[in-house]
């Protein structure tokens, strides 16, 4: 079949080293807070992991050659899977999470920046573990940026690519992704966002630990918290606003920040994806605020706006933070949240979901078909930002969307075997597939995913990975033609 197994194994061994190093901060946190048992557990994991990784990677020498597309898909899928597997070790060794399935779920939820949890009481966990949980998200957010900006275009998954500014991202042609300066800058931007978020949250009166957890949750659009009541715990409009602000900017196409750094502000504000994204957010905030105020859910219009904006931004960015129990909101507001969940953030950002650019293209497709009904012979190209979308990209967006719908429906059916109410079931699918992590009813702000059976938890982990990696990356691995190159 001619797969370059060496290249795959080498990448995975590098992954081991990376994860090993990533556990260091958590180890330090544990030591700092005097949680020696947790620290010991981290140490026990880090050294074998690093040693194995180093051993394997030193043994394998690769002849540099063009990486084939199939290998690219396998590497991406396995990397996320592997990272989640290793990432579940701290939970298991410290025995903070019962059983492999739960630990794996928690770890996948972290690396996919979903922020769903099976732990019903997070406040009793050691700080080191809490830090690791959130740090996984941060790593996942970083990983997804690399994936979206550098790897996806090489794999030819269109849609994400369309709104890209003129910055050519690095390509995957020599195995080691060569980072051009422009791409490196994007990762610096991510780091800068994180540090600013932490600093601003500390200014709001949070202690550095809480601030880091909340910042990781925001910039990675993950949404895990170290309190059972989430952001509500702090009950501060300032903190809510800072968290929302950073989730929103983390959900804007990162390549556009490069334009800003280069002084091309126009590119940023002329970008239709960003405009529509912000427009949807403002519109949703406005109607939720009006609804909450008019139906008397909150006493003042200011409070309605505060929670309306926080919850809208938390859902469209697929973060899943919560600062209020939105389960008691009206059906109308809940429906708006559900729609926001499906739309998701911009392309090449840390947000999940269908992505705004695809929604824009699909709406343009509808607009065109209205025109064609009246003028059957007209040939009208679809344009975004003045550029014509090639038919192949159009077909790619369409097939992505319908695959999404199909996966959504099939997954909802599989989860409905749990015989929970349908609204819980639907929003569970949406929460996992779009990497939101919070849904309505039983998995709303007060609930956790602990109520699902092991089978469903494994399936949900799979769904989170699938959603994060833009469906095709995972689904392709299950098609016979993927493994049979002659077809």
């Amino acid at each position: 079949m001619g797969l370059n197994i060496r290249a795959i194994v080498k990448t995975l061994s590098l992954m081991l080293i990376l994860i090993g190093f990533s556990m260091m901060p958590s180890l330090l946190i544990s030591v700092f807070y005097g949680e020696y048992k947790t620290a010991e557990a981290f140490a026990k994991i880090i050294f074998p992991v690093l040693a194995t990784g180093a051993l394997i990677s030193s043994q394998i020498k690769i002849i540099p050659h063009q990486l084939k597309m199939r290998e690219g898909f396998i590497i991406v899928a396995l990397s996320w899977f592997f990272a989640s597997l290793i990432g579940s070790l701290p939970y298991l060794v410290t025995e903070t999470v019962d059983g492999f399935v739960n630990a794996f779920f928690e770890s996948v939820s972290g690396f996919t920046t979903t922020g769903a949890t099976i732990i019903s009481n997070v406040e009793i966990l050691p700080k080191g573990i809490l830090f690791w949980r959130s740090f996984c998200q941060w790593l996942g957010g970083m990983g997804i940026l690399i994936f979206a900006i550098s790897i996806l275009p090489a794999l030819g998954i269109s849609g994400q690519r369309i709104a890209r500014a003129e910055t050519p991202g690095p390509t995957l042609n020599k195995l080691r992704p060569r980072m051009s300066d422009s791409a490196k800058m994007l990762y610096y931007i991510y780091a800068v966002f994180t540090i600013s978020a932490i600093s601003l949250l500390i200014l709001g009166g949070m202690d550095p630990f809480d601030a880091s957890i909340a910042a990781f949750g925001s910039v990675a659009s993950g949404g895990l918290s170290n309190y059972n009541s989430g952001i509500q715990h702090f009950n501060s409009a300032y903190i809510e606003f800072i968290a929302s602000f950073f989730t929103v900017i983390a959900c804007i196409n990162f390549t556009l920040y490069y334009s800003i750094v280069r002084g091309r502000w126009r590119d940023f504000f002329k970008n239709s994806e960003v405009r529509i994204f912000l427009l949807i957010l403002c519109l949703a905030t406005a109607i939720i605020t009006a609804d909450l105020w008019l139906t008397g859910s909150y006493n003042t219009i200011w409070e309605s706006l505060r929670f309306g904006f926080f919850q809208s931004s938390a859902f469209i960015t697929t973060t899943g933070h919560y600062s209020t129990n939105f389960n008691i909101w009206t059906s109308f507001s809940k429906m708006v949240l559900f729609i926001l969940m499906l739309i998701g953030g911009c392309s090449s950002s840390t947000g999940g979901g269908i992505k705004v650019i695809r929604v824009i293209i699909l709406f343009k497709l509808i607009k065109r078909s209205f025109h064609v009904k009246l003028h059957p012979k007209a040939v009208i190209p679809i344009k975004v930002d003045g550029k014509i979308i090639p038919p192949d990209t159009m077909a790619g967006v369409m097939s992505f969307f319908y695959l999404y719908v199909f996966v959504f429906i099939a997954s909802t059916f599989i989860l409905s075997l749990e015989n929970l109410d349908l609204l819980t079931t639907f929003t569970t699918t949406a929460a996992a597939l779009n990497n939101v992590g919070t849904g309505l009813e039983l998995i709303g702000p007060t609930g956790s995913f602990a109520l699902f059976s092991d089978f469903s938890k494994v399936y949900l982990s799979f769904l989170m990975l699938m959603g994060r990696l833009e469906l095709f990356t995972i689904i392709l691995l299950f098609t016979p033609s993927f493994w049979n190159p002659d077809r």
Partner: protein
Amino acid sequence: MDFRLITRVLSIVILIEAFSMVPALSVSLIYNEHSTAGAFLFSIVLMLLLSIAGIYFVKPLSKSVNIREGLLIVASSWILASLLSVLPYMLSGSIQGFADAFFESSSGFTTTGASILSNVESLPRGILFWRSFTHWLGGMGILVFAIALLPSLGIGALHIAEAETPGPTTDKLTPKLTSSTRILYYIYIGMTTAEVILLLLGGMNVFDAFIHTFGSVGTGGFSSYSDSIAHFNSLYIEIVITVFTLMAGINFNLYYFLFFRNWRDFVKDRELRAYLLIILFSAVLIAVILYYFGIAERFGTALRLAFFQTVTIITTTGYSTTDFNLWPSSSVMILLLLMFVGGCSSSTSGSIKVIRIVVLFKLIRRGIYKRLHPTAVVPVKLNGKNLSSGVVSSIASFLFLYIIIFMVGTLIVSIENVDLITAASTVAACLGNVGPGFGEVGPLSSYSLYSDATTVFLSLLMITGRLELFTILLLFMPGFWDTNR
């Protein structure tokens, strides 16, 4: 746009509707319901006057209907027919309030079968008959009669037929529009007669047999009993109704093949195969779930319940033999999905239609294939023929539009602050012309819980769904009215 031409065609539609009320009038007379008969008589006379005025005084400028006029004629005919059908409901006092009456009559014509009435047994027979008769008329399309009449008036009507026939138009049946619609009507009438006779043999009285025949061949779902088909508690009747709704959900053009003994094209049809496969698969799956969760004690009973419900939901009929609201979530989920699938194109059923689902899966398959072979040019094939990129993109945008309308519709209904499953299934049931939904609009409940504004919105949603979205939505586009664009 030639509004005189449009007025003339609409007048013909009114004329046809006036004549269609005659059977209901006779039923009222037979059952001695004099006030109902009076209501029908008044409506008939009023409509006759309107239509004669329209036909006699308005002289059209042009001889053929263009695309815009065709779309406008179809959209306004359906809305007008539903509006006029409000007359007997309100005049006889069976339904108070315009919004409710409009809902009931659009639900009839669009073959939805959703009702705002909680106790249908108390209605006069004439009204019950009219309600179900609108199913029968709407099933085939209320303009089909008009199309048959138009050529004799010297008006070409191709664009009307295109706008009213459900499903993407992929091929023409016969070059002569009127002769093919005539054959389709013979088939429809034949099916109706056969079902009435079979139901009579099952021990139904004549009135009930007609009501349930109209409900099943029109894939509507109005019954003369609140508990629908469960009232009869007869396996035979359930089987007859299942078979006929199933047949009504098949592309009528395929019967045309049968008519000329062209078995191959019938059996080989991709859409038909997919349709039957979906039914078989869903029914067996539901039966297993019902048996597993102990809803049915014996597997045979589970199969009976599952088959009946699967067929009536996928064909968007909406008859029920049990309160499927109480079923486990997984079976409810399957039924909800079937609501979106619908029957075959050019059948009397509503919703998305199997052919579009088939194309959707082909698009997904092609998408996966193209990931690995980015340069490959893969056409989408159906029944061995390549679909043009125009047809594929129109199907793709239809599906997306359907999802958008469903979402926005649910959002609008959720203003009523019913739970979201009720709201979503209300919209799915109305847009797909199914009838009953889940939650508070389940098979044993009615749509009376909604406010007038929502009721009217849902009525328009049913008509939008029946006319395959574009026909109604185009009217709201500025480009439609601006002929220069």
